[in-house]
């Protein structure tokens, strides 16, 4: 791995001196790179970033979020996505192009207080976030255990390639739906499993910056793993963001998946969104995760990477290309590392 120096920082702390690239939550001040958040600073040869430990959710295009319907106009729903802005879900997204406010009763599809899992399709400096539920597994979440965590802990809860959440799901026989905005819904048949999963999620939230978190979660869940398949738990949330998979590698599966989804959309009218946990109910969780879920999680992970890149591009769009390249090469390496380890 590249040289990485990790340090706890607060806003204004000088992280490192020299000509490094500010990647995330870092600003240049004179010859220093300075943190803008409370978090864990990492200085590597790619640049300098701070993994924040607090903050409200700032919407990003393509993020999966869990939102609450809070109001309705004649053409759209207003959705509280636990962010700095309320989002909108157009009625057309649910009813189709020929939606007519006169004929169609919006209240029959979604009512005030309903939770939906949705994707952010657009959001910029001039417009509120716009949502869609037109995708597999999106739409209304009819029931489940509702948990709110800090959005900054979401990457940690997902874990490396979804490792953390898979551990929790498998041990508790539950299905965990995670919104990037920090809203989590757990579903499952066994009430004990539900409460244990909720406990584990709280533990991840509270102790996300600490070492050996996975071990402690496993201890809480009573999971034995003598084989120790992964390398020892790395220090902090950043470990979940890195290693990064190369851009092309990710996009391919996603594109394929989207094609599949588009094909499936005909069969799956969003007026009756498939409640995700029904699939779960039919599948014992001890079995390997269904590929769909994997896909979803990888998307979550990918979004983290996009976030970094977006943050980067915010500071300088010229630098973006270079950073992409360097990230690709470095993450290529780390990706290979991982593969090798798995083979071992």
């Amino acid at each position, binding site marked *: 791995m590249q040289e990485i120096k*990790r340090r*706890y920082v607060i*806003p*204004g702390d*000088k992280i490192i001196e020299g000509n490094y690239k500010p990647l995330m939550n870092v600003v240049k001040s004179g010859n220093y790179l300075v943190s803008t958040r409370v978090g864990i600073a990492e200085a590597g040869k790619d640049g300098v970033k701070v993994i924040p*430990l607090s903050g409200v959710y700032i919407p990003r295009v393509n993020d999966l979020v869990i939102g609450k319907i809070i109001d309705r106009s004649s053409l759209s729903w207003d959705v509280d996505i636990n962010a700095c*802005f309320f989002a909108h879900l157009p009625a057309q997204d649910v009813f189709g192009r020929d939606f007519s406010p006169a004929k169609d009763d919006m209240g029959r599809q979604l009512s005030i207080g309903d939770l939906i899992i949705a994707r952010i399709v657009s959001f910029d400096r001039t417009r509120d976030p716009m949502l869609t539920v037109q995708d597999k597994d999106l739409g209304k979440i009819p029931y489940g255990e509702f948990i709110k965590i800090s959005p900054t802990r979401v990457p940690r809860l997902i874990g490396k390639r979804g490792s953390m959440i898979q551990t929790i799901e498998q041990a508790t026989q539950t299905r965990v739906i995670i919104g990037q905005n920090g809203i989590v819904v757990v579903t499952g048949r066994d009430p004990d499993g539900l409460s244990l999963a909720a406990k584990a999620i709280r533990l991840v939230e509270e102790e996300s910056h600490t070492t050996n978190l996975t071990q402690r979660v496993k201890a809480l869940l009573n999971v034995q793993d003598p084989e120790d398949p992964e390398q020892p738990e*790395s*220090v902090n949330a950043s470990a979940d963001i890195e290693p990064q998979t190369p851009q092309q590698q990710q996009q391919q599966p996603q594109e394929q998946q989207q094609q599949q989804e588009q094909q499936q959309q005909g069969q799956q009218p969003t007026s009756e969104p498939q409640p995700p946990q029904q699939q779960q109910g039919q599948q014992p969780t001890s079995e390997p995760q269904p590929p769909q879920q994997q896909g979803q999680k990888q998307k979550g992970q990918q979004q983290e990477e996009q976030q970094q890149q977006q943050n980067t591009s915010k500071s300088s769009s010229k630098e973006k290309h270079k950073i992409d390249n360097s990230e690709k090469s470095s993450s290529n390496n780390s990706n290979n590392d991982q593969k090798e380890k798995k083979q071992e």
Partner: protein
Amino acid sequence: MYSLKELTLLDENGKRSDGRGIDDLRPIKITVGVVKNADGSAFIEFGKNKIIVAVYGPREVHPKHMALPDRCVLRCRYHMSPFSTDTRKNPAPSRREVEISKVMRESLEPSLILSDYPRAVIDVFVEVLQADGGSRCAGINAASVALADAGINMRDLVSACAAGRIADNIVLDVNDLEDKEGDADMPVAYLPNLEQITLLQVDGKLTTAQFSECLNKAIDGCKLVYEIQKDALMKKYFGNELEVKEEV
């Protein structure tokens, strides 16, 4: 009568009315994350000042026409509870509270990267539960910590402290009695890493030399306060672990 006050404000051994030396701060304690519903919060005890600060945001602006297209709006409300002062304070905002709200907002704003949150608002609510002189400085200190707790992008913390003059002596961190009976009071807010002054008020007479000595002393005070702010944040987020433990 007046000479008696002079005596009690600073005795011949250089001790002040509350037993401090001229360069001593009152005891300061900051606790982070005290208001459960808020996005960020802090409680500061600064001498006898007890101030609670809650931060909400960035969030939607109401009314919507207040929103700015290119940056976030910062709102600050400094308010004193009716029981916070010696004689009961009317709960309706006074002109003093309106002015302090304004200078607090202006002293915090340079530390925040408001362009990161266009069209949104950040609300800082400062509630003085007990006032003891220097409540605006104490409020700024707690507000800055609460903003960091809320995870708002900041260039630096803001640390605030007052200095003042008692007869010919420039003293640090003026208390209630010294504020009322002393000769000058100078509250200062400071960005400790960027070395910039974001609040400066003077209330009383100072010669040019005294002015610069006073400003210097206030800035030294801000630096001391900064260490306490920093410790409070570190303690909340990292417990007693001050170094990241690397695993091998």
